Each structure stands twice: as structure tokens, then as C-alpha cells.
């Protein structure tokens, strides 16, 4: 099978071609065309096809990670949306949880108040009321009211309508009926319901998720349709698959209905790519560490399984979003992060970034503030003549000048100031990793750090040393890890139901009914998407907490008939999970199963590996030697450090640091005392003799 994976980022569009039969893999990069990303994609595909000598019509599948939904939210450029909601609850979206984002601020903005996804004038209410007992209808749906509201919204010119009723996660009939009426009355309008988008309790979070789906719906739907058209116009009748935030693929049709599933499309693909590289070398406990110019994304893979974020922890731009997402932690730390000393004398690095323009001083585009990249250059870790494979010349003098100014303010030598910049930014990243591991009962020393993105391999070894992580892995193509990640996963469908079942009065037959109902829903979705149902596998899970708690932990529910015995097993694994997560369990307390979940996975062809690197000799790989500053137990020392071309390194040979390994899309730093090895599986390893 021939596939093309395309990851559209802010600056570059990364493409990967893979032929799963021949094992051929080719990568390509073009500039992103922000006004219409599909243009850059098409250019890239045509160039890539020419490069590998295939006809575009031979491509079977196009896989895509997109930022179209994310940008619509971040830049507040969704549509004029409307909402129909339960009488008495017009302002759920506006009041939220009545909490301010900042404790210590009079002049702050509350995003959902200053930039509402749906304006109040477009939030209309109708009479209807359900309750926490899913069989009780307190007030029947006022269908005429829905009709009138739909007409009014249509007349007001909204492009999308979200139908959001209380308790619809238990009983979606009112929402479904209302949605049908809206479709009748307001043809052409994008319609979505909160029970379809996120059938879970907590009205502010669920309604916001549905409102966001409406806000971005028309734009994403148009984009997907357009993309499909463009592909057809080039003779492709390939399936278009889009990366979801949960690390699964979805059909274009599904994303046209539920664009809110793609908010972490790119970062999720990155985690997949990092995890896939680790798996190539048999590593199953991984911390993926993706550093770009302005931010670092951290993901966790435990025993080969991606960690999904708890439903209460998922948000974008300050808005909560109740959809499955990989647990990706983003902090404002990257190559462009600016170092400064504030008015009261504290030394800080980031979160402010010089971005791509003007960028670090070293870019020579007018940047005048010291950044992480400048510090790396001053210390000799970046090579002025070999940045991005020599495609961009760095301005060492400009970097030395801005770091020199910083050093004067700090009363340190320029080297010490530069090293200080790295130490602070690395400590920020190490703290972020600590919060995803140590705080959850995981010992980072049991993990391998997969460093990628333009700047990941520059910092990987130092951050790993701070955490006692023994090994850093740099994937074959660290700059396009996300595009590779697209080719490593399956189609995924999921559904969830809130059940609030207490362990001391639990009816396992009712629970079995819930799972059976969800199974039927998912099977219908799979079939509707034209996917072979027989090949699909199903995974059950439950969100569980002690009765009275507000936060759930996810535990697996094994296959088979749901008996009382199985429920006991679920409870036992919850107690164990609680103890692992919080260091404490309350085994005598009643337990509440809050949500049950079902995920369907339909297999998709995958990338098997990358071709073995050409290899060579150490002498042949040596590009040149240059001074490089590292911290040693005796303080800062300058080492005459060899710079090697990665693709010419001898394979499977342990080599001593210090060394700098060059390749077109990144630079890898191997500190003194560490060793490194270029594997025949395509990965580069750094082994640290660490004691944190």
C-alpha cells in the first residue's frame, strides 16, 4: 500500500511517502500556506510524488494532521454560532464555573466572557427538562419553541447551531428530536448536539464542547470537503484520514461532523511518531519530548500504551473540551524563548518567545533579545555553518553580543550566562516532565526520553540528566516526527456514557446493557464509514472514583460477560490505580463508576520501519572539530568537540562524548561522560552515566 502522511504546521508542511510493500520511505518539506493550507499540501504532494517517481493516482491513502480547528479557536475565527438550550440555563456558557482564570488580577479577561463561542443573543431557550434519573421527563420538549428558535437563529444569520440540554448525556432524546427539527427549519446550517459530542455530565464543560464544535464546524467541514475535491482533481481516489487528538485516525466524514476531535491533531501525531521510533528499538516506556521554537510538548507512553488525559484536564485556549485527547503537556519553552532579568533582579527564560520573526539574534533577522538558540550557539552546541544542514547561516557575533549583554546584567561570564539560560529552560522542562511522571507515581528513571522537533535533541541529554533518565533516543527524522506518526496508528472510534453506579448497589446487568448499547452505536458508526466491522476490535474502560470524590481514574474493563465477579475485579484495579496515582487508597470506601467507555479500533496499514542508514566510519563522519562548553564537576570547561554527520556514523558502535551530531533537521548534543550510538534500526541513542 502507498501512503502519504502530511502534517501542516505553522511554518512548514511536512510530508512522508511510504510504500508498505517495498519498505520505501521518503520525506519532504514545503512552506505552509496559511491562507489556504491545502495549496501547500498539494504542491508538497506533487513534488514528493515526482521525487519518488510515483503517480499520485497510485496513492491509496492520504493521512493528515491539521491545525485548522485549533487555529480557528486560538485566533477566534470560527463562525457566528447559535445555541438552543434548556429554559433557565441561557448563560451556562458565560458563567462557567464562576471562577476567574487568575487569582491575583483585577484587569484579567475571562475568555468565555470576552470571546464567547456563542453570543448571548444567539443563545435561545426552550421549555424542556430531564433529570438525573434517565427515565424521567420532568417537562416534555416544546417542539414549537424549538422551531421558532431555529427560525430566529437562521434569520439572524448563524452558520451553526448547538443543541444543549441538561442531562442529555443520560437521555439524548430531546436533543435528537430538537436537532431534527432544526435541520428541517434551518437547512444548510451545521447542527450539533451536546450528547453526540461529549455525552458526559458537567453542563458547562459539555455545552462548551458542543459550542466549540459548532463554532469551528462550518470552517472545518468546508476545509475537509475542499481537500477531498483537490485530491480528486489530481486523480487521487485515495481515502482521506485525519488524525484525532486521541492518537487515532478518523474518516473525513466523521471529522466533518465532529471537528472538535482534531484540536490536538498535530501534537498527537508527534507523540505517535516518537513512540513508534521507540518501539522500533523495543522501548516501551517512553517520554516523548518535542521542542520547537516556542513550545515543548511532553507525552507519556507506558508499556507501549498512550496515556489519555482525564476528561477534566482537557482544554484549549482556556476553554474546557470534553473529548478524548492524549495526555500532552505543553509548556512555553523552546529555541526562541527569551531570557531576561526582570526589574527586581530575577533571571527568567520564557514563556515569551522571539518566534520565527524576528527570531533569535542568531537568525540575523533583527532579533535583539537573547534566546535559548543564542545560548546554544555561544556555547558551541549549535554550529553556525551547519544549521538546518547548512541551509541557514547563523550569526555568531549577534548571538555573542546579546548573550554578552545578559552576562553583564547577571555579572557572569558570557559562557556562564549562556549556560544559565540553558539550565533554567532545561529545569522548566524537567519540572514539566516531573509533573507528568513523579506526580503520577511513575519513576522517570524507568523511561527512555525520545527527543525530537528542531530543538529536542539539543536539550534531551541535559534534561534527562536532571531527571536521572538513563537513555535518550533521537528518531531517524526528528524534524518530521509527526508526519511519520500519522502512519503508525489505526482508525479509532469512541463513545462514553455517564452512569453514576455505586459499588454497594451496583447492578451488573444494567452496566452490561450500557456496554451493549454503546457497542451497537459504535458498530453502526464503523459500518457507516465503510470500514470492515469484522476486523475491528473493541476495548472497554470505566472512569471510577470513590463515592464523593470529583475526579475519576480510568481503569480497563476486561472482555467477557459483565458479572459481579468482573465488577469486583474492576474495583480492585481502581484501588490499585488510586494508590499508584496518589500514594494512598481507601479500600473500605464505596466506589462510584462515573462513566463507561468503549473504543473501537479498525486496523490501518502502517509504517514498518525505516531503511537502515548507510553508516560509515568515524573518520568519514567527522565534519570538523570546534570548541564547545559543558558543565563538569569542576565547573564550566571548554572541550574540543567533534561534529559528526549522522548518516555517516558507524552503525551499532558505542562512541564517546562529547560530540555534536549534525543532520538536516536537527542537532544532537552528546555531553562529556555520555556515550552515543547510531543504530541500524535508524535511531540514535545517547546513554548517560547519570545520578540526578
Amino acid at each position, binding site marked *: 500500500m502507498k501512503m502519504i502522511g502530511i502534517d501542516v504546521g505553522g511554518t512548514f508542511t511536512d510530508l512522508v511517502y511510504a510504500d508498505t510493500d517495498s519498505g520505501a520511505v521518503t520525506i519532504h518539506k514545503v512552506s505552509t500556506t496559511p491562507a489556504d493550507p491545502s495549496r501547500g499540501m498539494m504542491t508538497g504532494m506533487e513534488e514528493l510524488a515526482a521525487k519518488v517517481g510515483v503517480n499520485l493516482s497510485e496513492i491509496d491513502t492520504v493521512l493528515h494532521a491539521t491545525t485548522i480547528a485549533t487555529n480557528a479557536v486560538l485566533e477566534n475565527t470560527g463562525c457566528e454560532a447559535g445555541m438552543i438550550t434548556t429554559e433557565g440555563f441561557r448563560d451556562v456558557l458565560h458563567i462557567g464555573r464562576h471562577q476567574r482564570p487568575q487569582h491575583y488580577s483585577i484587569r484579567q479577561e475571562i475568555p468565555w466572557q470576552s470571546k464567547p463561542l456563542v453570543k448571548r443573543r444567539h443563545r435561545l431557550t426552550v421549555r424542556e427538562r430531564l433529570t438525573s434519573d434517565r427515565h424521567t421527563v420532568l417537562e416534555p420538549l416544546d417542539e414549537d419553541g424549538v422551531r421558532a428558535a431555529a427560525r430566529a437563529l437562521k434569520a439572524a444569520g448563524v452558520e451553526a447551531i448547538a443543541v444543549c440540554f441538561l442531562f442529555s448525556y443520560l437521555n439524548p432524546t430531546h436533543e435528537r428530536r430538537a436537532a431534527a427539527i432544526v435541520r428541517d427549519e434551518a437547512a444548510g446550517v451545521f447542527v450539533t448536539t451536546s450528547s453526540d459530542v461529549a455525552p458526559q455530565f458537567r453542563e458547562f464543560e459539555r455545552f462548551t464542547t458542543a459550542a466549540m464544535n459548532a463554532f469551528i464546524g462550518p470552517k472545518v467541514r468546508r476545509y475537509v470537503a475542499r481537500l477531498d475535491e483537490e485530491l480528486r482533481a489530481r486523480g487521487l481516489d485515495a481515502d482521506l484520514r485525519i488524525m484525532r487528538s486521541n492518537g487515532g485516525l478518523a474518516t473525513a466524514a466523521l471529522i466533518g461532523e465532529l471537528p472538535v476531535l482534531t484540536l490536538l491533531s498535530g501534537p498527537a501525531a508527534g507523540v505517535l511518531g516518537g513512540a513508534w521510533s521507540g518501539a522500533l528499538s523495543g522501548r516501551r516506556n517512553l517520554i516523548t519530548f518535542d521542542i520547537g521554537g516556542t513550545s515543548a510538548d511532553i507525552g507519556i507512553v507506558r508499556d507501549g500504551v498512550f496515556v489519555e488525559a482525564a476528561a477534566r484536564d482537557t482544554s484549549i485556549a482556556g476553554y474546557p473540551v470534553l473529548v478524548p485527547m492524549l495526555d500532552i503537556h505543553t509548556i512555553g519553552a523552546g529555541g526562541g524563548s527569551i531570557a531576561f532579568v526582570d*526589574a527586581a533582579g530575577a533571571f527568567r527564560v520564557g514563556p515569551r518567545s522571539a518566534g520565527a520573526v524576528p527570531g533569535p539574534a542568531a537568525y540575523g533577522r533583527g532579533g535583539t533579545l537573547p534566546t535559548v538558540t543564542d545560548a546554544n550557539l555561544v556555547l558551541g552546541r549549535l554550529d553556525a555553518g551547519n544549521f538546518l544542514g547548512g541551509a541557514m547561516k547563523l550569526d555568531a557575533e549577534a548571538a555573542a553580543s546579546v548573550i554578552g549583554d545578559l552576562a553583564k546584567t547577571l555579572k557572569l561570564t558570557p559562557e556562564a550566562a549562556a549556560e544559565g539560560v540553558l539550565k533554567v529552560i532545561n529545569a522548566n522542562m524537567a519540572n514539566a516532565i516531573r509533573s507528568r511522571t513523579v506526580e503520577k507515581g511513575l519513576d522517570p528513571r524507568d523511561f527512555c526520553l525520545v527527543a525530537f522537533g528542531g530543538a529536542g535533541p539539543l536539550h534531551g541529554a541535559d534534561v534527562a540528566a536532571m531527571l536521572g533518565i538513563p537513555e535518550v533516543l533521537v528518531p531517524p527524522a526528528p524534524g518530521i516526527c509527526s508526519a511519520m506518526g500519522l502512519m503508525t496508528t489505526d482508525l479509532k472510534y469512541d463513545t462514553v456514557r455517564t452512569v453514576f453506579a455505586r459499588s454497594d448497589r451496583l447492578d451488573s446487568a444494567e452496566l452490561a446493557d450500557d456496554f451493549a448499547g454503546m457497542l451497537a452505536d459504535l458498530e453502526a458508526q464503523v459500518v457507516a464509514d465503510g470500514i470492515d466491522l469484522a476486523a475491528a476490535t473493541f476495548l472497554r474502560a470505566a472512569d471510577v472514583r470513590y463515592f464523593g470524590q470529583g475526579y475519576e481514574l480510568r481503569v480497563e474493563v476486561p472482555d467477557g460477560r459483565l458479572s459481579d465477579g468482573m465488577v469486583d475485579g474492576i474495583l480492585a484495579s481502581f484501588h490499585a490505580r488510586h494508590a499508584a496515582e496518589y500514594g494512598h487508597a481507601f479500600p473500605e470506601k464505596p466506589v462510584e463508576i462515573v462513566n463507561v467507555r468503549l473504543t473501537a479500533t479498525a486496523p490501518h496499514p502502517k509504517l514498518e520501519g525505516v531503511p537502515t542508514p548507510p553508516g560509515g566510519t568515524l573518520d568519514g563522519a567527522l565534519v570538523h572539530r570546534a570548541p564547545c562548553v559543558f558543565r563538569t564537576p569542576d565547573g564550566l570547561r571548554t572541550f574540543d568537540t567533534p561534529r559528526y554527520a549522522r548518516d555517516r556514523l558507524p552503525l551499532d558502535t558505542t562512541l564517546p562524548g562529547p560530540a555534536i551530531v549534525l543532520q538536516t533537521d536537527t542537532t544532537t548534543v552528546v555531553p562529556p561522560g555520555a556515550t552515543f550510538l547510531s543504530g541500524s534500526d535508524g535511531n540514535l541513542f545517547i546513554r548517560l552515566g547519570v545520578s540526578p
Partner: protein
Amino acid sequence: MIDPVTVSVIHGALETIAVEMGYKLMRMAHSSIIRESEDFGAGIVDRHGRGLAESAQSTPLQSGPLPGYVRGMLRQLEARGDTLHPGDVVMHNDAYAGASHGPDVGFIVPVFMGDNLVGFTATTAHHLDIGALTPGSCGIVDAIDAYAEGLQFKAIKVFDRGVRNDAVWHILRDNIRASDLVVGDMEAQVAAARIGADRLLDLIRRYGLETFEAACDASLDYTEKLMRLAITALPDGTWSAETTIDGFTDSDDPARRDLKIVATVTVAGDQLLVDLTGTAPQVPDRPINMPFVGTVDIAVWLTIRSILLDTAEHGHIPVNEGLTRPISIVAPKGCLANPIFPAPTIARFAPGNQLADTVMKALAQVVPHQVSAGIGNLRVMAFSGDTAEGPWVHMEIFEGSYGGRDGADGMDAVDTLYANTRNNPVEDIESHLPLRVRRYELREDAVGAGRWRGGQGSVREFEMLADGGVSIEGDGHKHRPWGFDGGADGHAATLYLQSGNERRELPSKSPYRRVKRGDTFLCIGPCGGGYGPPFLRAPEAVRADVADGLLSRADAAAAFGVVLTEALAIDDAATASARARI
């Protein structure tokens, strides 16, 4: 001399630990007041009792007092001739020794390296019930002294050298309603504080005690300097402001109602003095007195910090003791803001927030562009009852709203100033309690008119689905949030109890009363004050509020001088002439 890099790295690590403590407490906690409302605190205190870091999730009124808890505990241990040992966990809630008020019980873990005390980790949380005279721990507005407020813990070791003091835990279980929840929450507090202690010890070992302490000193000096710089930027001088709290508006005793809060701010160089002289005398037998340490100090610090070092302007700033060093607070003994034991304090929440608002009103004269007009205060209600499984208690915090700001309208329907809790989802309340929420929306009947209008208050309706009881504590039913710089005053809160066909208005403080199934509370929140003359408000902004259904056309014309056609177009000529008449 420690280098700035190490200072930054160690401070970052301390904040990470504090956040982890808060995260774990919130997730392990059982009652909604902690896990949904987030009425809890977690932080790290040095061995001298100086605050080093606090968890970002907690509410300021909980984390802020932690250092005071530690110092109060140390004083009491010393007075008893007792000392701390490795393995101790101390429970403390003495409102006259650092605690914010009785229901906010602190659990403190002294951290030892070998035999040396090197610091403390501590958690606080507002507990559902603390064994007061009526169910719940809010709305205990008829407590006549500190003894009537519930159990008092004055530096009680619940673990002594690692051994659980079972007797204390038995007492807790026997004297607290809904004790499964409350004791579960306390255990979560202990667990979170212990996790923090382990992490703190790791951190100190990694860097060595000397480096660690030098870094902490430098962090404290740093925030002190930040605050001094901010104060220095102000002109020297003295500014005074006064507001009035309801107190007990239904009382015959004038000493219990319409009580003044006075704040006088003096700037002298890099120092700031807040003098509360003029504030009404304490109410000796009603619990609206504010603990000087734990409530008053926090209200003052929070307000000054939020105005002079506003996060929206300054970004993240470490929260530690250094920020408070340049600020002194004076309150005469025996006034509402510095009561004398055993004057009761359990219902000090609303007065304390009003005090914060009064400090802002004084500062508004110095930094008019950095403040909001008067805020709307909050209300807390405790709903309770009995089921076959035992008593239940639920506390709900009702939001206020902010006044208008220079360049922005007030925040609508949010917690204000020293409170920043969360509401409970309607779908959670109704799934677990015999309550029904019939309405939760913005007010449409009133506006704090101004060039920048005040935030809209909320309207909530709670129906009892079973017989039970309700206790209420709030303020601002009588006195309206102040308008600023030509802005109109905001609007007061109101509370009605509908029982059958009878509807009656309740005062802002209302002790436990029995209520029947079907009884409904209509809870109307306050609208914040307006900022700047309403006739300078952009006509388009007035039109938007009318289109959004928050304001009537009649009020648009009357309050703002903006005349709208039936189709909601701005009638420019009519608007100009309406505005010219002023």
C-alpha cells in the same frame, strides 16, 4: 552569594511541589466544597514560618494563611512546652492563632533532615461540618462565641512520631456530621501534605540545605523588591475609604447592623501602611468578626498585590512572604478587624471580602486605572437533611461580580477578590442530592451603569426535593457596590424563600431553618458598580447589551442616554440630544 540561575531553578521546583500537593488533595478529596469548589490550600513554609510557595489551584483565602497557621501552631506548642518530631502531623484551626476560621482546618507536616527541622508542608481545606450547633460550617450566624462554632484544634498532633493518635480521630468521627466525608477529606489533606514533605526533602538533599536556604532567601528578597518597586512608583500620601456591611439587618440592636469598614492607605517611599482604624467595634456575640491573622491580612495583601502586581500585566510572580514585607497593617484591638477571643469569627467570609473591596476603594484614588469599581459580595448556603444513610450537608458558594474597569466591563457572575472558588455543576448536584436547580442565568433586571458597566449578577433557583434545613451567610443585600469616577452604583443582592404561595425575603445572614420539600430559594446576585460616566459608554456597547437581552431599550435610554429604534439601530440624533441634556 548564590547565583540567580540556582535561585530560579529551586523556586521552580518548590512551585512544582506545591502544585502537586494541591492537585492530589483536590483529586482525593470527597466533599464537593473541596473538589468542585476548590476551597482548599496547599503550600510550603520555611522553618521560620515564612511562606515559600503555594499551589496554583487553591483559593487565595486558603493558601495565603498557611504561614500564619504554622506560626500560630509553633507559638502554641512552645507555650505548652511541646516540640516537633519527625513523623508528626499537626492539626490546627485556631482563628486566634493564625487560622482563617474554624472550618478551615490545617494539617501541617514538619519536615526533618535527620534531626533538623528544615521546613513545613501544609494543607488547609474548608470542611463541610466541624461540629457546630447546626449542620454545615457556613451560615452558623447565631454562634455566640468561639465555643459555639464547633471543634477547636490548637496544635493537635494527629500523628505523633509517626503513630496515629486514634483518640483524636475517634473524637472527630463522633462530633462531626457527615463524618465519612469530612474525615476522608482530612485524610486526603494529610496524604497530600506528606507527599509534599517527601518531595521537599528530596529537593533539599539534591542541593544541600545551605544552598536551598540561600535560594529561598533570595526568592523572598526578590518578591519583596518587586513589591517595593511597585509601591515606590506611587506618589507618597494618604487615602481613605469607607464601605458598609449589612451585618444583621433584621436585628434590633444597631451595634449589629450597618457596620462601617474603614481603610486608610499611606504610601511612604517603598512602604505601604493600611490602617483600619475607624472600622466598627467587634460584635461580641455574633460571628462576623474577622481574624486579624488569617483573614484581614490576606484580604489586604491580596488586594494590593492584585492591583499593583496584576498578573494580567506582570505575568506569573512567585507568591511568597517577600510580597508582604513592605506592607504593614494596623487595626485597633476590639474592632471587627481585630477581635478579642472568644468573639466568634466563623462567618467572617463576607466582611473580609468587603474589607478587601474597601482597600481597593482607597487605592482607586491613587491608581484609578488599575482598579475596578465596587465588587458584588458573595453568599454561602448550607443545605442539609437526613436520609436513610445518615445526614447530608452540601455547601454552595454563590458568586458576586466585579465592578467596571478602565477599558473593560466588570467580570460577570464570578467570585470576587479573596475568593476564587468554583460552582457545582447542576448535573452533579441533582445526581447526588435531593435538590433541583431550576435556573442559573445572568440578571436582566439591573445594571451598574458606567462608561464601563459593572459585571452582571446571577440568578439561581434551588428547590428542595426533600424536607431539610438551610443556613445562609452573605452580605450586600442592603449596601450597593460603589460606582467609580462618575459611574453609577451597582445593585444589591436579594434572597427569597418561596414556600407554597408565600414568598418572603430573607436577610443576608440567616441561621439554620427547617424547610419543606418543594420550598424554593430564589438567589439573586449583586451587580458590580459602574466605572466612568454612563453617558460616555460607546453606543454600540449599549446596543450589544440590549441585543443580548441584558438591558431594556428603556434602560438604555434612561441610564446611558442611548436611543435605539425598535430594530435596535442606534438613533444617533436622539442619542446625541439625550446625552447633551446631561
